C-alpha cells in the first residue's frame, strides 16, 4: 500500500515552504528517523525526518520548488503490510481503531464543529449573609484574622499556615500569634525568605489536597511569587479541564503602611482582580475580616486576601458566634444615603464614612458601599445604589490606571448608564511611586478632602474641582 509524504508544517504559522533539497532518491529504502529533505520555512531551514518506512517510489516535487502548500503530497513510499497502520491517513482506513480509545474518553463520532453562541460567564451563586443581631465582642482586626485561622484549623486538619516569621516569631505583624503553640510546627511553618518557592510549594500542597494559607509578610513580596499565583494557582482548573482546582489562600497586608516608601507601599487589588481564576477579597471591619477569611479558607478556589497593616489594630464589634462566616462576592452598604454613592474597600471605607459624615453636615446624603470582595465584584449592590442616588464616586488607594474604580465605572456604564446624572468620579492613589517624605506621602494617598471634592463635583456643588 502506498504511503503519501506530505509537505509538513514546521512552525505554528507556516502555510507554505520551499523544498530546498531532497536527501533521498527514488528507489531508496527508508527507515523511520531517516532524513528525507530540507525544507525552508519563513523562519529557518529544517530537515524533515521520515516517520513511515518503505521504499521511495515517486518524488513529486523537484528540489528548489517554492511555495509548496503545507499538506500537499511531495513523495510516495511503497509500504509493506507492517506499516499499513502507520500511514498518515491510517485514520481514514481504519474505522474500528477508535475502539482503542479509553472508555472514559469515548466521544460519539462527530465532525469537529463550533457551536454558534458563546455563553456568557457563569454567574456564581452567592450564599446569603447571616443577619446578626445577637451579642457581639469587641476585637481588633488582627485578633479577628487570627481567630478565623484558628477556628478553621481546629475544624479541618488539612489547613496549615506557612510564611516568613509566622511561627516562632508569632507573625511579623502578630496576626498568627499563638497559632504555633496550639497547632505545632507541623501546621504553622516558618519558611526561608523564599516567596516564589513557598508560594509554588503551597500550590503543590493544594494540588495534593491540603488547604494552605500562605502568608506574605506583605503583598509587595508577592511579586516574587506572582508567577505561581497567576500561572499555577489561577489557571490550573481551566487548563485541567475542571479536574484540578487549587484551594489556597494567599494573605497578608496590602497597600500603604506608613512611610515605607515606594517598594513597600502598593495596592495589589487591581493586579490580582485582573486575572480570571482568582477571587480577591479585601475587608475593612473585623467582623468581615473574620467571616471572609473563614470563607476564603473553605473556598475551593485560590483566594487573594488583602489585609491592611494600618487596620490591624483597629477595633470593631464582631458577632459572638461560633462559626461566623461572610460570603465572598457580596458588598455591604455600610451607610445608607440618597444623593450620592461612594464605593470603597479596606482602609478607604473609613475615609469614605468620614467623608459621608462631613457631607451630611453640608446637606448631602451619601451612601457608602464597602465592596469587601473585589472579584467577583458585587455589581448588583452598586447598581441598585446608583439607581437610587444617580451619582457615583469610586475610591481606592491603588493607582488610577486600570484600577478597580475604572472597572466599576465601566460596569456602571454597562448596567445603568441611564441612571447617572453626572459622570462617575474617582478618588485614587496618585499615579506615582509612593514617596518617602511625610508630606509627599500624604499627597500621594487619597484623603477625605478629595472625596468631598469629588462628591461636590459629581453633584455639581460649589467647591467641586
Amino acid at each position, binding site marked *: 500500500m502506498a504511503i503519501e509524504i506530505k509537505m509538513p508544517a514546521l512552525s*505554528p504559522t507556516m502555510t507554505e515552504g520551499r523544498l530546498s533539497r531532497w536527501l533521498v532518491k527514488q528507489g531508496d529504502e527508508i527507515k523511520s528517523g531517516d532524513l528525507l529533505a530540507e525544507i525552508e520555512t519563513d523562519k529557518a531551514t529544517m530537515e*524533515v525526518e521520515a516517520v513511515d518506512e518503505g521504499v521511495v517510489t515517486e518524488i513529486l516535487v523537484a528540489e528548489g520548488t517554492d511555495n509548496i502548500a503545507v*499538506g500537499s503530497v511531495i513523495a510516495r513510499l511503497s509500504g509493506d503490510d507492517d506499516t499499513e*497502520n*502507520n500511514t498518515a491517513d491510517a485514520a481514514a482506513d481504519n474505522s474500528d481503531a477508535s475502539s482503542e*480509545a479509553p472508555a472514559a474518553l469515548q466521544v460519539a463520532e462527530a465532525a469537529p464543529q463550533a457551536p454558534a453562541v458563546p455563553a456568557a460567564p457563569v454567574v456564581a451563586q452567592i450564599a446569603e449573609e447571616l443577619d446578626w443581631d445577637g451579642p457581639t465582642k469587641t476585637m481588633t482586626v488582627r485578633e479577628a484574622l487570627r481567630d478565623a485561622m484558628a477556628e478553621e484549623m481546629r475544624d479541618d486538619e488539612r489547613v496549615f499556615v506557612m510564611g516568613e516569621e509566622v511561627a516562632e516569631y508569632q507573625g511579623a505583624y502578630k496576626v498568627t500569634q499563638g497559632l504555633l503553640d496550639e497547632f505545632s510546627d507541623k501546621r504553622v511553618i516558618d*519558611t526561608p525568605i523564599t516567596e516564589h*518557592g513557598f508560594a509554588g510549594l503551597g500550590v503543590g500542597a493544594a*494540588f495534593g489536597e491540603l488547604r494552605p494559607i500562605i502568608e506574605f509578610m506583605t503583598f509587595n513580596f508577592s511579586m516574587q511569587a506572582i508567577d505561581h499565583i497567576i500561572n*499555577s494557582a489561577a489557571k490550573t482548573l481551566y487548563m485541567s479541564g475542571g479536574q484540578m482546582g487549587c484551594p489556597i489562600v494567599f494573605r497578608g497586608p496590602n497597600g500603604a503602611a506608613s512611610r515605607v516608601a515606594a517598594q513597600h507601599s502598593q495596592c495589589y487589588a487591581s493586579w490580582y482582580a485582573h486575572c480570571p481564576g482568582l477571587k480577591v477579597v479585601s475587608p475593612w471591619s473585623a467582623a468581615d475580616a473574620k467571616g471572609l477569611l473563614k470563607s476564603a479558607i473553605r473556598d475551593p478556589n485560590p483566594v487573594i486576601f488583602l489585609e491592611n497593616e494600618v487596620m490591624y489594630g483597629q477595633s470593631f464589634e464582631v458577632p459572638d458566634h461560633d462559626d461566623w462566616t461572610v460570603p465572598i462576592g457580596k458588598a455591604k452598604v455600610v451607610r445608607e444615603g440618597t444623593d450620592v454613592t461612594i464605593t470603597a474597600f479596606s482602609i478607604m471605607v473609613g475615609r469614605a464614612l468620614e467623608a459621608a459624615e462631613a457631607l451630611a453636615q453640608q446637606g448631602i446624603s451619601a451612601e457608602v458601599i464597602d465592596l469587601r470582595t473585589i472579584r467577583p465584584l458585587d455589581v448588583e449592590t452598586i447598581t441598585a445604589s446608583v439607581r437610587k442616588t444617580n451619582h457615583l464616586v469610586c475610591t481606592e488607594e491603588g493607582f488610577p490606571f486600570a484600577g478597580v474604580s475604572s472597572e466599576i465605572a465601566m460596569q456602571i456604564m454597562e448596567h445603568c448608564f441611564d441612571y447617572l446624572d453626572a459622570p462617575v468620579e474617582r478618588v485614587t492613589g496618585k499615579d506615582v511611586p509612593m514617596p518617602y517624605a511625610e508630606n509627599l506621602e500624604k499627597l500621594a494617598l487619597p484623603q477625605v478632602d478629595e472625596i468631598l471634592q469629588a462628591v461636590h463635583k459629581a453633584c455639581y456643588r460649589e467647591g467641586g474641582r
Partner: protein
Amino acid sequence: MAPKTAKTAQKRGRPPKALKNAKTLKNDVPETDVLTSLYHDMLLIRRFEEKAGQLYGMGEIGGFCHLYIGQEAVVVGLQSVAEEGDSVVTSYRDHGHMLACGMEAAGVMAELTGREGGYSKGKGGSMHMFSREKNFYGGHGIVAAQVPIGAGLAFAHKYKGDGKVNMAYLGDGAVNQGQVYETFNMAALWDLPVIFVIENNQYGMGTSVNRAAAGLDLCDRGKGYGIPGMQVDGMDVLAVRAAGEIALEHCRSGKGPYILEMKTYRYRGHSMSDPAKYRTREEVDSMRKQHDPIDQLKEMLLREGVDEAALKELDKQVKQVVTGATDFALSSPLPHEDELYTDILVENA
C-alpha cells in the same frame, strides 16, 4: 518543623562512576517480562511522539509541541520502580511522562489536537495536562515552576503520612532558576520525600549546558543543602531503574530529598519549530546510533533469548494503540464554545 541540628553525613554527590555502583548494587538483569514491558513502554512513547510530530506537520497540532524522543529511558525506567500513589510533576516536555504514568494515549493525543476528548477538554494543550487519577500533576509551561510544586506534593505526602514520594522532573536549563534552590533548601530542611530528576539532555533550547551552567555537575547542585545526588546514564533504562530504586528507598525511609541527574539526549529540536542548528547532525546521529535506549534494550532482549517475532508483534500492538489514539484525537469534536467560560472558578461550592 523542628530546626535541623545535625544532619546525617550525606553522601557526596557522586561522579558518573557512581552509576556503575548503582548498577552493581542491583546488577541482576530483571526478568524478561520486566524487560519486555520496559521495551513496550519506551516504544509506545517513541511511536506516540513520532505520530505527534507528524500530526503537527499536518497542522492538526498547533502551538508549542516538545517531543521526548531520545529521552524515553528516563521516565520509563523511573516510573517502572515507582509505587502506585507516587506523584509526578514535570515541564512542558510532558507527553512521555503522561504515558509512563498510565494516562491513556487517546486522551493525551486528543489534548494535543485540542479536542473535547482530551485530558483537559482541549483547554490545556501539549504543555498543560493533568490526571489526578494517575497522580500526574502537570505539564507546566514556566521553566522550573514544577520544582516547588513537586516539593509541595511531597509536603502533602509527608503531611498525610501516606508514604508516597514525588518525582519532580526538570531540565538542565531549569536547574539554573532561583526557585530550584529555594526548593532544595526547603525540601532538605523539612526532609521532604521528593526526587529531583534533572533530565540533562544537554540543551536548554539552543543553549548547551556548559554555556548555561557554572560549577559542579548538576547532580552536585544540592551539595550545599546536604542533598545526595547521583549521575546516571539516562540512555540505559536499567541504570535508570537501579538509580531510581536507591533514590526512592532514600525518600521513602524519611531521609529527605534526592537528586538524580539523568544524562540523556533529545533527538528532535527543542520544539517543533526549532531547526536545531546549534548542534551537528553527526552529534545527533552518534547518540542515536550508539546510545539509543530502545535499540540497546532490544539487543539485550534478543541476547536474553526473546524471539524477534515477539518483538515485532509488540511493535505492531504499539502502532495500533497509537493509530487508535490518533483516530480518536482526530474524530473527537472541538470543545463546545460554552467551555470558554467554564472551569474558571469552582462554582456553587
